Structure formats: structure tokens, C-alpha cells
């Protein structure tokens, strides 16, 4: 039987370690010798201990005699439901927790090497990262809209710190933009939540869902969900609310961009999935499919066209993130098991791929290469970093046997299945654009001759996490069954399946 402790322990352990990290890292810094090894040791302890409760929860969930669709675990006593906070454990939240922990660990490894330990506030940086992983796992476990909102905003606020770490004028500007956007977004969401609570008397996913099916007057409901959806759409960077993302990810240190694109971006799709699929299905309750389809088409087109026009490589990758939002939305829009499967697969793969490219670009940026012209001939000067960037670019473009291919295949197929062939065609056409600008990048890297031929020494330590993720991209491309088997239980629990 799963207890409240089992559920909260993953979150608590991350938060606890986050607090402990500050004194520990400070102590390590004082020793002045073997600092890297000690830091590595500390964080491997952190992650191996934090992984235990996640594993424990997974095992407990799957060893239940009769698979329950979901498990509601409430924190407060019955009469005060207004203050109650609920965790909901189902296959999807467990999947997300595993993904967040695993991907978080690898991107964390990169940050340890990327953010110089001797720098003053680096301990805070690590601490905030751990805090964000904890919060985002909290998002995955949330069982009601309010808990979801609280954890999500905590994670979003934390990410602004990661963006601001270097405190350059550009990053200040970008973070300010981001903060303004998320504050507007949270205002929208809270407003929407209050209406939902007003008309249904609850915020729990399943309770709201049931209340909605018997609701007669839907006018207020439409307003409420427009607010909620708009709020989360801002945070997921759906066009036309995407403007903050390229700025923020370009100005942030590469380790932050990699971490945020792998966790926060994917988390935002998860939130959209929860709201749309787990509350508002079947779509007859509220006809949102066409609206979302239009937005996803817009996001794919605008994201890819913006990327096509970019000259700064980091910004180009940031725009690929926007395009990815569009592909994820296509999957949500389809409201089919296949689409959700594609979406969950895309979470993981898209997150890993953007993380790899941000990491590789981070190394190159350090060497002073920023624009496409700077990248000329980098393939010969820094073969390993370029190889990683090359493979992630091909994965984005959907070239098998890399993981991005399976993700795109699932997404397009689900669009056809949902009778939205036009959306699939837009997806295909935009992915040709995507292949074009990614290939342009590759062309610069391999075809152009550099101004000077000297080889540059590549930072081996930074390449380790990159190549771990590259190996995952290849493995998941060749043999996707590993992850698809994890996703399969989710598909059987989908609420719109009779």
C-alpha cells in the first residue's frame, strides 16, 4: 500500500539535499584540494539516495495486486477540503518522476563542470537546481490544480535564478521578461482556478472532471479554462506567447539552458497534458481541439521560421525548443492513445536532445564561437563536440536511427489518426524547414574551412554527460521499446478510453 510518505519522500529528499548542499559545497571549497572529486562525490550521493524513494514508489505502485487507475492521497482532513492538497499517483506521474530524476542527474553532472566551483554563489546554483528537480517531481505527483500550481510556480521562480546566474545585462533583461511573463501567467491561472473552484467546488482532477460532465451552463467554464490554458501556454512558450524563451535561453549559461529545456519545458507539456487530457476529455465537454490545433500549427510554423532566420546558434537551438512545443501540442491535440504515447516519448527525447545541443553549444560558446560563421569548420577543430551537436541536430530533424525520429513518427501518425491530416502535413512541411536549417548548421560545421586549422583541446569532463545523453538518443532510436514499455501502462489508464 502506498503511504503519503512514499509519495512525498522523493520531493522531500530533493528539497532536503538542496538545503544541505549549501554548507557542504562551502566546506568543500574551503579545502582547496580535490574539490572536484569531493563535489562529484557529494552529488552522486545525493542522486543515488534521492533515486531510492522514486524506485521504491515505482516498485510499490506496480506490485499492487489489482492495478488501480490512480491513487489519491490527501494531506488534509475531510472537512477542510479547501486547504487540502492531493497527490495523485498513476503510471504517468511515475514515468515523469523517473524521467525527471534521470535526465536531471545527467544535466546536473554537466553543470558541476560547467559552473566553476570556485565561483562565489555556485553553491546556490546547485542548490536551486536540486530544489527545481524536487518541485518538478512535485508537479508530476500533484493531484489537484492548486498543488500543481504551487509546485509549478516554485519551479518557475527557481528557473529565473538559473537564468540570471551570470548577471550580464542581457540575462537581466531576459530574466525580467521571463518573470513578467510568468507573473502574468500565474495571475491568469489563479483567476481561472478560482472560477473552477467556484463552479465545481473542488480542484481535484478527477472530481473536477466528474463535475464538468454534469454541468449544464458552460459559459463560465469556458472563461475559466481559457485563463488556465493561456497561463500555462505562456509558460510552455506556445506561439504567440513565446517571446521570452529565445531571450532567456540565449542569455542564460548553457548549463541552465540545458537543464531548463530538459526539465521545465518538458514539465510544462506535462502540465498541459494534465489539464487538457485528464480534465477536459472527452473533448465534447469543452471543444478545445480545434483551438489547440491552430495554436500548435502556429507554433510549429513560427518556431521553425524564426530558427531559419537565426544566426546565433544558441538562439537557433532555443527556437527549435519553440518548434518542439508545437510538435508536442500536435500530440495532445490528437486525443488518441497513440498521440499521448508520442507526447510522453517526445518529452523525454526532445528534452534530452535540446539538452545535448545546449551543452555542446555551451562548450563552443566558451571557446568564443557564437554565430554560424564562427562555427565554420568546427567539425575538424573540435570533432567530439561537433559530433554530439551533429547527432542531436539529426535527431531533431527526425533522421533514424536517432530517437527524434520515433517521436516525430508517433506525433504525425496520431494527427492522422485524429482525422487532422492537415496538421500532420503542416508538421511534415515544417520539419522539412527544420531539416534545412539544421543542415545549414551542419554545413557550416563541416563544409566551411575555418580561418585557422589548429585543433582546440576539448574539455573532456564536459563531454562525459553529453555523450551519456547521445548514447541514450541512439539507444532509444534503435530500440524504443525500453521507454515505450514504461509508457504502455499510461496508455491503458487514459481517462478518455472507455
Amino acid at each position, binding site marked *: 500500500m502506498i503511504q503519503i510518505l512514499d509519495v512525498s519522500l522523493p520531493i522531500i529528499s530533493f528539497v532536503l539535499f538542496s538545503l544541505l548542499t549549501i554548507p557542504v559545497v562551502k566546506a568543500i571549497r574551503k579545502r582547496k584540494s580535490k574539490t572536484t572529486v569531493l563535489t562529484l562525490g557529494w552529488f552522486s550521493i545525493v542522486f543515488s539516495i534521492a533515486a531510492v524513494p522514486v524506485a521504491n514508489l515505482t516498485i510499490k505502485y506496480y506490485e499492487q495486486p489489482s492495478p488501480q487507475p490512480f491513487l489519491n492521497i490527501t494531506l488534509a482532513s475531510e472537512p477542510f477540503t479547501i486547504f487540502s492538497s492531493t497527490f495523485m499517483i498513476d503510471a504517468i506521474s511515475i514515468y515523469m518522476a523517473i524521467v525527471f530524476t534521470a535526465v536531471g542527474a545527467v544535466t546536473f553532472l554537466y553543470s558541476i563542470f560547467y559552473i566553476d566551483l570556485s565561483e562565489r554563489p555556485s553553491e546556490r546554483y546547485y542548490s536551486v537546481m536540486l530544489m527545481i528537480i524536487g518541485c518538478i517531481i512535485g508537479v508530476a505527483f500533484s493531484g489537484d490544480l492548486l498543488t500543481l500550481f504551487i509546485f509549478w510556480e516554485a519551479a518557475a521562480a527557481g528557473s529565473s535564478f538559473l537564468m540570471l546566474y551570470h548577471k550580464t545585462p542581457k540575462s537581466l533583461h531576459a530574466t525580467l521578461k521571463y518573470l513578467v511573463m510568468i507573473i502574468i501567467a500565474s495571475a491568469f491561472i489563479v483567476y481561472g482556478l478560482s472560477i473552477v473552484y467556484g463552479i465545481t467546488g473542488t480542484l481535484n482532477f478527477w472530481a473536477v472532471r466528474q463535475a464538468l460532465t454534469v454541468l449544464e451552463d458552460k459559459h463560465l467554464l469556458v472563461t475559466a479554462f481559457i485563463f488556465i490554458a493561456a497561463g500555462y501556454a505562456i509558460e510552455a512558450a506556445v506561439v504567440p506567447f513565446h517571446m521570452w524563451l529565445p531571450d532567456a535561453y540565449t542569455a542564460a549559461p548553457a548549463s541552465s539552458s540545458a537543464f531548463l529545456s530538459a526539465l521545465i519545458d518538458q514539465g510544462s507539456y506535462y502540465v498541459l497534458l494534465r489539464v487538457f487530457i485528464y480534465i477536459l476529455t472527452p473533448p465534447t465537454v469543452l471543444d478545445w481541439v480545434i483551438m489547440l490545433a491552430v495554436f500548435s500549427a502556429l507554433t510549429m510554423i513560427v518556431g521553425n521560421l524564426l530558427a531559419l532566420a537565426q544566426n546565433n546558434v544558441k538562439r537557433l537551438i532555443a527556437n527549435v525548443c519553440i518548434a518542439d512545443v508545437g510538435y508536442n501540442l500536435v500530440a495532445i491535440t490528437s486525443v488518441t492513445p497513440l498521440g499521448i504515447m508520442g507526447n510522453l516519448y517526445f518529452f523525454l527525447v526532445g528534452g534530452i536532445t535540446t539538452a545535448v545541443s545546449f551543452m555542446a553549444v555551451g562548450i563552443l560558446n566558451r571557446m568564443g564561437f557564437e554565430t554560424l560563421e564562427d562555427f565554420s569548420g568546427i567539425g575538424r577543430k573540435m570533432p567530439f563536440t561537433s559530433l554530439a551537436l551533429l547527432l542531436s541536430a539529426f535527431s531533431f530533424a527526425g533522421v533514424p536511427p536517432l530517437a527524434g525520429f520515433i517521436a516525430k513518427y508517433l506525433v504525425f*501518425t496520431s494527427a*492522422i489518426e485524429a482525422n487532422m491530416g492537415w496538421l500532420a502535413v503542416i508538421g511534415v512541411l515544417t520539419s522539412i524547414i527544420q*531539416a534545412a536549417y539544421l543542415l545549414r548548421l551542419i*554545413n557550416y560545421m*563541416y*563544409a566551411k574551412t575555418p580561418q585557422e586549422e589548429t585543433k582546440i583541446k576539448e574539455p573532456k569532463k564536459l563531454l562525459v554527460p553529453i555523450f551519456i545523453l547521445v548514447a541514450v538518443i541512439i539507444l532509444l532510436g534503435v530500440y*524504443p521499446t525500453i521507454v*515505450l514499455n514504461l509508457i504502455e501502462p499510461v496508455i491503458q489508464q487514459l481517462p478518455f478510453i472507455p
Partner: protein
Amino acid sequence: MQNMLLLTLLLPTLGVPFVYLTGKKSAKAAAILVALIAIADIALLSTTVPIVLDAATEHKYVESYYWIPILGSSFTLFVDGISLSMAIITLILILTAALFSVNYMQEKKGLAEYYALLTLLSIGLVGVFITSNLMLFYFCWELMLVPTYFIIGGWGYREPYRAAFKFFIFTHAGAVFVLLGIGAIFMVTGDLDMFQAQTALMTAQPELVKWILLSLTAGFAVKMAVVPVHMWLPDAHSEAPAPMSALLSGVIIGAGAYAIFRVSLGTVFPAVMATDFGNQFLHGLAVFGVISAFFGSLIALVENDIKRVIAYSSIAHMGYVLFGLSLFPFQEAMAGTALHLVNHAVSKGLFFLSAGAVMKQLGIRDIREMGGLAGQMPVTATSSITAALSIAGVPPFACFISEFLIFVGAFQAINSDGFYVLPTVLMLVATVLSLAYALRYIRHIFLGPTKLKKAEEVPFFMKLAMVILVVFVIVLGIWPTFFLDLITTVSFG
């Protein structure tokens, strides 16, 4: 042994790092290793020949492994007569390309990467032909793309990456439409096995099947370089290094034709065959075939760049193949088309290799500046003339027999469908054009007065590669029985 086909794919896969490491020490050894892998693969594939020829096994040989059950895909490796012929001929071309490269690429840099990419390419190329699972098919289909891109770009002529870029974007754009079609097939049938899907599609909604068919065929046609989506071909083929051109023109565009044959016509088409749309579709193929044949031949007739002449002749020949495919399901025409893919692969491979030999020895590529090379480079001249005549459809060289079979099929089709009268006549005219450009090519380069100072005959390995293919072109012309026997085990329609 039950894992022959799996081994056929595993051998080059595991071979890639070895080829790379060998190449770091000695490029020649790497080339020979690639050739040895190809020979071993041919040996592995030939063990399935008796099984395919045996009627008791329904002329098929299948291996199936666990892969992605949720997506209706297992790792199914499959050969029948046609796919076996294509796979064998592909490996023969890879073998000769590797041997040819020993001397041809001698003074180039980064040969370890080159040979590793060539090995990687061979996985995709062979894989396309020996699978019946659409997902695996698509994997291999795209696996051809990346190595080709880097080989053209890294070791090509003039502005190689420009040509490679064009190649990649065009064929990848085609491929995503293929992907759309495959996705739709999965959605309709829940299975990605070509044969299961075929049965399941028979009961599907015809309107949807129509779109699947069009999307797939359009995608494949890009790889096949049918006019008007041929634009990538002349650049890619002429800027690539000669061994790569031989593979591109020999088997990569052939794979496009094979895919139309196997997937469009084999899997999807039967579901709409009886409808009006089915007829229109076939007529459409015939029209595009005639256009391609004329377009390619006419430009080959006026082109002066040695490799572009051959590149345009490839477009013309894909026109023949497409015309042949439009005659579905006439047995002679289908067998002829499949045989033409084999014959064209060998002849065109030889053609490009010999052109590469000329280019390498002379250092120029304008055929008007050449002349009288027959006396100076006898082996190259013999190979070029053999290839040119085969491409022109002159007996006793390979392509004659297959073109003849296609026309036999065309005349049968005329009996039942009056539409085919005009295309058939036009195709016959195109054959004359192909003879014209072949003779022009020979006259300009090998006959007439010597315009250049003494040119030397090519070194040993280039000679060896060309001689192997000359033997094949002639033997296949005189005795096509081996491949014809294999191909006719497949029944159509």
C-alpha cells in the same frame, strides 16, 4: 543456420569501427576490408538462393526478431527473388566501389572516415532491400542519407557540400512524406508488416488509401529522381567522387524504384486497383516515366560535362523503370522492370567508374576537350564503351534484355488498354535518343583525333573494379537467367 540475414546486416555494422581503425593505419587495407565484408555478405545472402528458388517455401525467406511490438513492428528480415537480386547487386557495386577507391581516392585526406562511411552506407542500402517491415525499411531508407551526404560533401568536386545539401534536403523532404504514408498505414491497419498491411488495407476506406498511395509514391519518386523532382540528381551525381556516383546512380535511385514497386504497388496499390483511381494512378506513372525519359535523354544529348551526361541518362533510365512499373501487373513487364534495376545498376556503376577513371587521368571534365583516348586507355575505353552501349540498350549487353521485356509487357498492355499506345511509341523513340547520347559520348572521348598529351592507363585496382563490372554487364546480357529465375519467382498483382 537460421540468422543469415541478421548476420548480413550485423557484419557491416560491427565492421564500421574496424574499418575506421584499419583506415587510420592504411587506407588500402581499409578498402580491402570493406570489399571483404561485401564478399562475406554476398556469401551469406547466396545461402538463401536455394530457399528462394524452392517452391515449397513459397519463394520466400523470412527471419523475425522482437523489436517494437507496440508500434506493430518486429525486426523482420525478408528476401524474395527481387529483393535478393537487388541486395546482391548492391553488394557487388559496394565491392567494386571500394576496390576502385583504393587508387581513385589515393591522394585524398581522411580516408579512414571515407571507408567507415562507405560501410555504414552499405548497411542502409542492403537493409532497404531485405526487410518487409515498413519501420525497419524507413530506418534503412534514411540510413542511406547521412553517409551519402558526408561522402559527397567531404570528398566531392567543386562545391561538394552544396550538392550534398541539395541531395539531403530533397530526399529528406521525400522521406517525410513516406513517413506520413507509413504512419497512416500503421493507423489504418495496426501493423507495419508489408504483407499483413496489404491484406488489412483491402478493407480500408478507399479515399484514405488513395492519399496514402500518393504520399508514399511522391516520397519515393524524389529518391528515384523522377522529373520534376529530379533537381538534386545532376548535381549530386556529378559532384560526388566516382565510386559514390556509381552507388548513387546504380542503387540509391534504384532503391527509390524498388520502394515504389514493393511498397506503393505491392502493399498499398492492390486496395485501389479495381477503382478508376487505380487506373489513373498507373497512367500517371506512365506519363511521368515518358517525361523523365525524354527530359533525361535530351539533356544528356547536349550536356558537355562528362559526369552530367551520365547523370541525366540516369534520369532517363528511371523514366523507363517508371514506365515499366506503370504496366503493373503484367508479369513480363514487372520482371523486366526488376531486371532493369539490376542491369541498370551494374551498367551505370561501370559507366560512372569509367568516367571517374577518365577524369582522374586527364584532370578535366569537358568532353569536347577530350578525344582519341581509346588507344591510350584501352581498359577504360572498353569499359566505357561496354557501359554506354548497355545503357543505350544494344545487345548483347545487359540492359537490352530488360528493356526488351518491358516493351513486351507494354505491347500486352496495349491489348487491354488503349492508353498505352502513345507512351510505348514515345518510349521507343527515347531508346533511339539514348543510343544517340551514348554514341556521342563515345565519339567525343575515345574516338577521333587525340587532343591532349599522352594520357596513362589507370592503375591496377581501378582496372580490376571496372573489369569485374564489364564481365557482369556482358554476362548478364548473354545469360540473364540467374537473376531472371530469381525475379520470376515473385508473382505480381
